[in-house]
């Protein structure tokens, strides 16, 4: 299909450590169309970030992409060498990190850091670059951008720095942006602003966005599709409405139930009991079974494969909350 920007098939990223192999990403598949926003949700240690870094091919030792294809614009990223990847990074795929406080080099001005991407990935002259930088800062909503260009990161607040980082990510008009928990380190009041901004800019540039987060509430306002990851595997994937209103996996529904609601009269917030299992010793059956509120014997021995229950709505569960095949 022409419209398909990214297709990940059976991606496995393993870390071979002294204590054993960690299957950080274990056979995930998904696809992303142009202009679409995909949310990857899950608890800490679920392999979300590793999935993001795998797409950039920035997995460092002892990690390796064990198997799978990452087809970006019709070409397999896994087969590309480091030099080809350097052209793709920043130009076609950009990334936004969690902590705006540490994502900018303290020793260079905002301008120098913004310009770097343009120097690398465009043939603009110095004057054009400067204008583009001002335009970018303007786009991300930094007032008086021309005056702010020569500021250093420490003169900016967290929210403004995250705006600058978004500007850097957008600089070369990438086709895909991977945002790894872009609002986690920010004030709640700023979070919404930044997310709105990100969404608007992605739509204006007709880019696609992969939003990695542990916050389902954040995702639900932003994205078109959701992937729920747990221990390196996809538990459920589908369109936003399917996931939010008809979660099929007990884990997804657990996550949804543990979002606090203001008007709820309940005394205690619901939670998913237990913690994420040790990645060195994953359970034999379904990874989530030990914490699942409706597990049965089969779940402890047999690992469920992902099955489609509706168009584009898939779930990896032996006993999904909705019957498989229901239309």
């Amino acid at each position, binding site marked *: 299909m022409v419209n398909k920007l990214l297709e990940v098939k059976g991606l496995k990223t393993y870390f071979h450590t002294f204590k054993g192999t960690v299957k950080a990403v274990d056979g995930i598949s998904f696809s992303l169309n142009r202009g679409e926003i995909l949310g990857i949700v899950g608890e800490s240690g679920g392999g979300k970030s590793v999935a993001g870094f795998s797409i*950039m091919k*920035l997995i460092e*030792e002892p990690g390796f992409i064990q198997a799978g294809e990452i087809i970006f614009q019709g070409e397999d990223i896994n087969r590309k060498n480091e030099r080809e*990847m*350097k*052209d*793709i*990074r*920043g*130009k076609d795929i*950009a*990334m936004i*990190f*969690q*902590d705006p406080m*540490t*994502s*900018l*080099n*303290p*020793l260079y001005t905002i301008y120098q850091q913004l310009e*770097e*991407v343009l120097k*690398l*990935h465009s043939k603009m002259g110095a004057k054009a670059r400067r204008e583009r930088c001002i335009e970018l800062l303007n786009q991300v909503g930094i007032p008086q951008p021309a005056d702010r260009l020569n500021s250093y990161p420490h003169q900016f607040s967290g929210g403004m720095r995250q705006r600058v*980082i978004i500007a*850097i990510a957008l600089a*070369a008009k990438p086709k895909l942006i991977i945002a790894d928990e872009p609002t986690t380190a920010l004030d709640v009041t700023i979070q919404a602003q930044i997310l709105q901004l990100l969404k608007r800019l992605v739509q204006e540039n007709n880019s696609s966005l992969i939003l990695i987060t542990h916050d389902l509430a954040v995702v639900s306002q932003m994205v078109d599709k959701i992937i729920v990851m747990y221990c390196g595997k996809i538990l459920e994937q589908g369109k936003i409405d399917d996931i939010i209103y008809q979660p099929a996996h007990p884990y997804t529904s657990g996550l949804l139930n543990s979002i606090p609601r203001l008007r709820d009269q309940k005394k205690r917030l619901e939670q998913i009991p237990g913690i994420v299992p040790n990645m060195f010793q994953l359970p034999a059956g379904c990874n989530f079974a030990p914490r699942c509120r409706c597990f049965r014997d089969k779940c402890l021995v047999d690992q469920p494969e992902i099955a489609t229950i509706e168009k584009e709505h898939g779930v990896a569960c032996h006993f999904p909350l909705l019957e498989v095949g229901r239309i």
Partner: protein
Amino acid sequence: MTKLKIGVLSASVNAENKWSQFLQSEFYFNYKRNIAAIAGTILIILFLLMATVGPLLVPQNPYNLQEISILDAYKPPAWAEDGELRYLLGTDSQGRDILSSIVYGTRVSLFIGITGMLFSCIIGTVLGLVAGFFGGKIDSLIMRIADIQLSFPATLIALFIMSISGRGIVNLLIALTLVGWVIYARTVRGATLAEKKKEYIEAVKVIGLPNYKILFKHILPNVFTSTIVIATIQVGSFVLTEATLSFLGVGVPVTRPSLGLLVKNGYDVLFSGLWWASTFPGLFIMLLVFGINMLGDFMRDELNPRLK
């Protein structure tokens, strides 16, 4: 045109800003209150003046045979009996003025100390950056060489190299560099390991910046502070090492004596009662190293966040 003017103007304003920023910084604030640091700076400036314009002021070029006279040999310092005002600190066995010798010797000593420091700093920093950034085999290789080298005293290694390669300023610089790079490599490697895990390094990887640019543009400036401290103190230690080597007869050539060689020359006649020929050069070595170390200690305390 106007744009150009504004550019020039803003550049000069920028420089002025930087200077006034420095005057308002904590570094300068503490510096003003640290007598040792100021004394060290004054000493260093005096020595630098001595090395640059000193030769114009002293009565003779002690290594120009036409300017010296054997008849003036073994003159004591000016204040002693038989002393001459012309030879303020006395003369040596060839009739060379000690003060003039010291001025010329300081030149050689400082040149060797600073150049040796620069070479080891550059080589050590680059190796440390590479080792820390790339890790793996290259890291192990560089660091094992460093470890082996650190298990011998620096002077011993330098002595060994010099006795193979023979006297000479170039040989001396090579020996000092081979001895001195280790400390930079280790420090810079450690700092690089810490720095490369920070998100802004990930962030520039993500925009596809080539490795050498990440290394030299983003990591190097952030690990440079520790290097400055080592570099300052190392100039002092190199002056000493050079003096030691020259004293032992394997350092600079006789034709261009450094302070260390002057001490040695004087030492030969020390027990005949000609104390000034070796005492004064020794005193100057002490003052020079003392000044450098005082400034270096202050910088170490200031620039090392762990000691704050």
